[in-house]
């Protein structure tokens, strides 16, 4: 099952950074392609509402 990991080792690393954007800039500074996901708390940070939304998505 490690084949996916070995495939990664043999591929160009391509990063999606979710959250703290210091890490996004660090990846870019190393000339590695990256995209920043500008994450915001779901349901305006209301954890219970977020849970309900996640459950709805699963239906």
């Amino acid at each position, binding site marked *: *099952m*490690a*084949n*996916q*990991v*070995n495939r*990664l*080792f043999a*591929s*160009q*690393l*391509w*990063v*999606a*950074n*979710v*959250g*703290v*954007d*210091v*890490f*996004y800039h*660090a*990846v870019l*500074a*190393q000339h*590695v*392609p*990256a*995209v*920043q*996901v*500008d*994450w*915001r*708390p*779901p349901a*305006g*940070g*209301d*954890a219970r509402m*977020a849970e309900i939304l*996640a459950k709805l998505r699963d239906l």
Partner: protein
Amino acid sequence: MITKNQVRKNLYFDSVTLMVASSKMREMPGIGNAAVMMGTDHNRALMTAAGLIGPDTEPFGVNDTVVGILAESESAADAAIAYFDEFLNKKKSDTASAEKRVKTLTAAKSGAPESNFAVISVPGRFARAEAEKALALGYHVLLFSDNVSLQDEVELKHIAVEKGLLMMGPDCGTTIINGTALGFANVVRRGKIGLVAAAGTGLQEVTVLIDTLGEGITQALGTGGRDLKEEVGGLMMTLCLEALQNDPDTEVIVILSKPPAQSVMKKMLAQLEQVDKPVIAAFLGGDPALLEGSRVAYAKDLESAARLGVLAAQGRPLVLEDDSAAEIEELARRECALLGPEQKYLRGLYSGGTLCYEAMLLLEELGVKSWSNIAIDKKYLIEGSEASSENTLLDMGEDFFTNGMPHPMIDFRQRVDRMEKESADPGVAVLLLDCVCGYGTHEDPAGELAPAIRKAKKTAEEAGRHLTVIASVTGTETDPQPRSQQIRTLEEAGAIVLPCNAQASKLAAAIIQRQSAR
């Protein structure tokens, strides 16, 4: 002092961005304290306790950014707020000019189907959902977030293993994939050594040492600190070892961790019996007997792990010579000649948890027992809030110090304050420090420590004492903060800089042993 606060409605920033802004504001003239935080309940409590907000603060919620300032004057407070606005504007223009920004992981994947790796650092309570989404989209994951439950970790890792994907973390700070440093990690030469670690700064220290010894690495994989616990069963360790075994570029495997749970150890050793490459393992604090009868070479500390790895990569016998002993003895003799007989103790102030742990083990082995907030022997456990006593080692990246505060690798204030306190203690002979460089950390760690070292030495000097400051730099020449420059800065401030933390700890031990005998 006056208090000034402001609420910015519906404005979200990640905690690191806000911590950086807060730190800069605190350094401004006339500012006693300042913090900018998202309006969560936890942050509300912190800001209230610090007196930065009060009953007359405008109501706010979790979606709002809250600014709190304690200042000597109205104008100083206004200047800090003006600085924050400027900081935000710059941030917005940087954001606008950045090439690729999207709102969701799904959008990231559809915009760049070739993207293959997700670095996730959202607040802990949202981390599982994001990691699960990433795995479903086929991403390998580095989960930097902490405060993720053990159950969530187990479930995420099962999903990942089923898909053959990496799920590193939670609380995984360091990884190097295909030569790229992710999280807190260093720029390390490519080579033949592959590493797996359940110990963040341990992985930084060993990869850096491999680089300074002239060898290089293939991959440095972090599993998160709990992977080798019974409950997680080493799910990621198993996958990573399999990948390194299959990787044609990896000729030597190095494993770093605290001692695994017994059942996990058994499973791991069985897996390693099938590996046809040299394997070196440092199970910090573990009994060498753990590896007896196995084909795995035992390394007692991080330095030994790096040096054995390099010897194996060079096809040389795995025999370590203690070539630093004479130099350490000479340095200890020289320093003790300057110290007074009443100066018997050391104070270690660390930003790297594994480095602090390594120092504690080495000191103990050399007969120097230390109090610590991460002590294994509960008898020697102290809280971060307690004053140091006798020999004390503090991991300042532990929860007590980071609760609502930036990590000490980013913000040096707490460490600098503590250095000042320790230097005023007439019983103290040695300050022992780490200086961790690389991506993710402060842009000039030695530059932050240097003035504090000078001040500590001066405080001691004014009281008629010499103070020995010992440090090591976890950084390479190719890091954003070049190693030689960092060493020079520390040395110019009066520190003795050893090549690694293990040697720095040994010097500290040698001095304390001599001082105790006086």
